[in-house]
């Protein structure tokens, strides 16, 4: 019973870490996309 509890706890922890990693990846890709747009807009403004 104790072992089952520990296994469930470990599984839950693993899922939580994976979820947080995925969220972080999504945030970073959004920030990179915004950064790229920012650079492009700056270039357009510099050219104009």
């Amino acid at each position, binding site marked *: 019973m104790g072992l089952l509890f520990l296994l469930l706890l470990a599984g839950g922890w693993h899922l939580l870490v994976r979820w947080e990693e995925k*969220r972080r990846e*999504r*945030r970073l*890709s*959004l*920030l*990179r*996309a*915004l*950064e*790229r*747009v*920012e650079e*492009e*807009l*700056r270039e*357009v*403004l510099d050219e*104009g």
Partner: protein
Amino acid sequence: MRGEVEELEALLRREDCSRDFLEGMERLLLGLEFQSDPGLSPLLLRLRELVSRLRSSYSLLSSRTPLREEWRRVVNYEFLRLKEEAHALREELRRRGCGGIPDLRRLAEEMRREGAIGEASWALLLSAWDPREAEREEVRKALLRVLALFSEFRRRRGGGWG
């Protein structure tokens, strides 16, 4: 977007018209324009017109026209009128619980349509957009920088507001 009321209040505390004030108002209005709240549109439209008129009067202040003092009076009058409308906007934002997250898909579409960004950046932005992440401070700051640059782009293109 969180913090819009605070941003607006900071602008309302200004005593005189300045370039910073005008740019702050333009950025704020552009940010609100991309929120999915059609109820704000008439008020935003009025404010945009007032900002545009004030900007053109303000630009004449730096010229050596003999009517400079007249223009100063016009600027003061238009500045006060704009602030009155901005007060109404503040109340409306408070009443509505301060808006939501800007619709980045609409913003991306508009930037592409107006030629500010290319297809590749547009597609990248759409694929990366996640409204749950928009509440985070770093994302919000990046979004504000993009809005400021797009606002400048529109202004340079001829003062148009779409």
